[in-house]
């Protein structure tokens, strides 16, 4: 009895909602259609992961092989090494997540507006350096013979180090060069959020005798917490994606055991090989997506409990 009543109630609820908020529904049509056409229709292609796809056939004409490629990936000799490397680099990148926030806060309290603007523009530039040139610069700076870093080390009396040859340094080089490239660009969102923090709250805090640090802790941070939370959750949700290009260019024989990640492996098996493995690539992508989703749901739940803001 209850179910029967519930169903028409739901429908009623939707119709009523449409009638009272027609504008919203009209608005949402645009993105809805976009999603359907460009995201959901091609989604039928996800089945490539379960078929033996060859580009000259259509997808449905390719034979169904089930979990063959997923199994193949998991049983790959270096599978655990690859997973570990991917995770390490990602967690490390995530751990330094607060740095752009701190940078934004520092800028926010910089007195000289001119200096503030200058630093901002300069910090924003590295984001636009293409990966190829970026890696080239990294290699030149770290070069044992001629690199700047080693010259500075020698100035302080140390011995030059061939950084790129030591697997131990790889993750640090990767992450910190990423910070250098991204600190400015990533802080933009926080600067914008900080500018939305009510000045009244600051005034009130000052009247209460709070110094800058206290104000940061009690006014600014809570004010940008939703943005931080969302950005953090989203970051966790792509924890298994590490872009291949920068790592691929930084790989060499000596650091391969820490530098081979999922995306470089897929790249080498896929496009770079003479026989692109679309199905393998799709299977791995799917596998990675699932891991990401699990991670996302987990972190979302935790963040919700801790901060009351979350994606859902």
């Amino acid at each position, binding site marked *: 009895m209850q179910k029967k009543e519930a169903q028409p109630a739901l429908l009623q609820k939707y119709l009523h909602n449409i009638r009272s908020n027609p504008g919203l529904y009209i608005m949402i049509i645009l993105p809805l259609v976009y999603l359907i056409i460009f995201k959901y229709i091609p989604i039928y292609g996800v089945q490539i992961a379960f078929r033996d796809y060859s580009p000259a056939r259509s997808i449905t004409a390719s034979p169904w092989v089930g979990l063959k490629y997923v199994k193949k990936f998991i049983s790959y000799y270096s599978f655990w090494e690859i997973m570990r490397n991917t995770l390490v680099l990602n967690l490390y990148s995530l751990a330094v997540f607060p740095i752009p926030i701190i940078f934004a806060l520092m800028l926010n309290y910089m007195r000289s507006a001119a200096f503030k603007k200058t630093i901002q523009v300069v910090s924003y530039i590295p984001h636009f350096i293409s990966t190829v040139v970026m890696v080239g610069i990294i290699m030149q700076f770290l070069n044992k013979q001629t690199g700047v870093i080693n010259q*500075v080390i020698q100035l302080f009396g140390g011995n030059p180090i061939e950084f790129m040859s030591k697997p131990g340094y790889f993750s640090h080089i990767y992450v910190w060069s990423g910070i250098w490239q991204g600190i400015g660009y990533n802080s933009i969102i926080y600067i914008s959020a900080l500018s939305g923090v009510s000045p009244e709250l600051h005034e009130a805090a000052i009247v209460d005798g709070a110094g800058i640090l206290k104000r940061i802790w009690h006014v600014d941070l809570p004010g940008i917490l939703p943005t931080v939370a969302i950005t953090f959750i989203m970051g966790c949700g792509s924890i298994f994606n590490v872009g291949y290009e920068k790592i691929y260019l930084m790989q060499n024989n000596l650091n391969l055991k820490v530098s081979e990640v999922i995306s470089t492996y897929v790249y080498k098996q896929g496009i770079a090989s003479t026989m692109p493995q679309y199905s393998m690539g799709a299977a791995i992508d799917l596998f990675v997506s699932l891991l990401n989703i699990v991670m996302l749901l987990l972190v979302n739940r935790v963040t919700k409990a801790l901060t009351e803001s979350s994606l859902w």
Partner: protein
Amino acid sequence: MTNSKKYQNYGSGDRIFCVVNGFLLIMIFIILLYPLLFIISASFSADTTVMGLSLLPGKFSLAGYRAVFEYKDIWTGYVNSLIYMAAGTLLSLTLTVCCAYPLSRRDFAMRNFMMTLCMITMYFSGGLIPTFLTVRRLGMLNSMWAIILPGSMSVYNMIVMRTYFQTQIPDELWDSAQLDGCGNIQFLFSIVLPLSGAILAVIGLFYAVGNWNSYFSALIYLTDRKKFPLSIILREILITNSAKLEFMDLDTSMALQERQNLMKYSVIIVSSLPVLLIYPFVQKYFVKGVMIGAVKG
């Protein structure tokens, strides 16, 4: 609320903070600046291979820039990129607002459904070939639409915008607007958008930059060289895939390598300029809103 008002109540603890803050920022500034100066210097240098600790170019030369200006494809690439960026950003912002705003309204019944729909697309995608086929079916191959449409709404950006709408537009505003008989759409145009300068600027910037840098769509959908964006031309010059070099005949690979060496720094400078100039404009919008007054009043 001007700057001076903010600073007049500084105690000694705060002054120390400012000094330390300033010092740290200067250090960060130097670390950020040094490699950039290196690039600028290298772009004016005849041979990029001889550079030590000093920042002055080994042999001053404009050859790098001359090569860039003479490479005709760069200019068509530039114009194309600007067009794609403008059109794409406009399209993206519209789509994003049309999605983020309804999702931020608590009285929108389809909220959770739509949100889930969006989130799924972040993780599952058909992949290269099905998307390609869809684009082809729509007759968009080799056109601007293939570049700006498929990726036009980033769910990530949409969520950030939605969060902003949810948290930065106080409920009191909506309550008082409703009392005045204002509907959702009117609220959007008369109150929300004017107060969302900061987020629109930021998300707009993200889309603009994303569009400017994007190359993959152009790579697979465009065959007419006249439509190529700058990013493709750039990659052709910088030859990311060195394995290809070995496959080519020696003379070609040497010529390409030489060209790359000559142009790699100057091309970065030339191609990044427009985007760099956007930021100062965008910055204007990061100003505290006047809305608090509206609620109180």
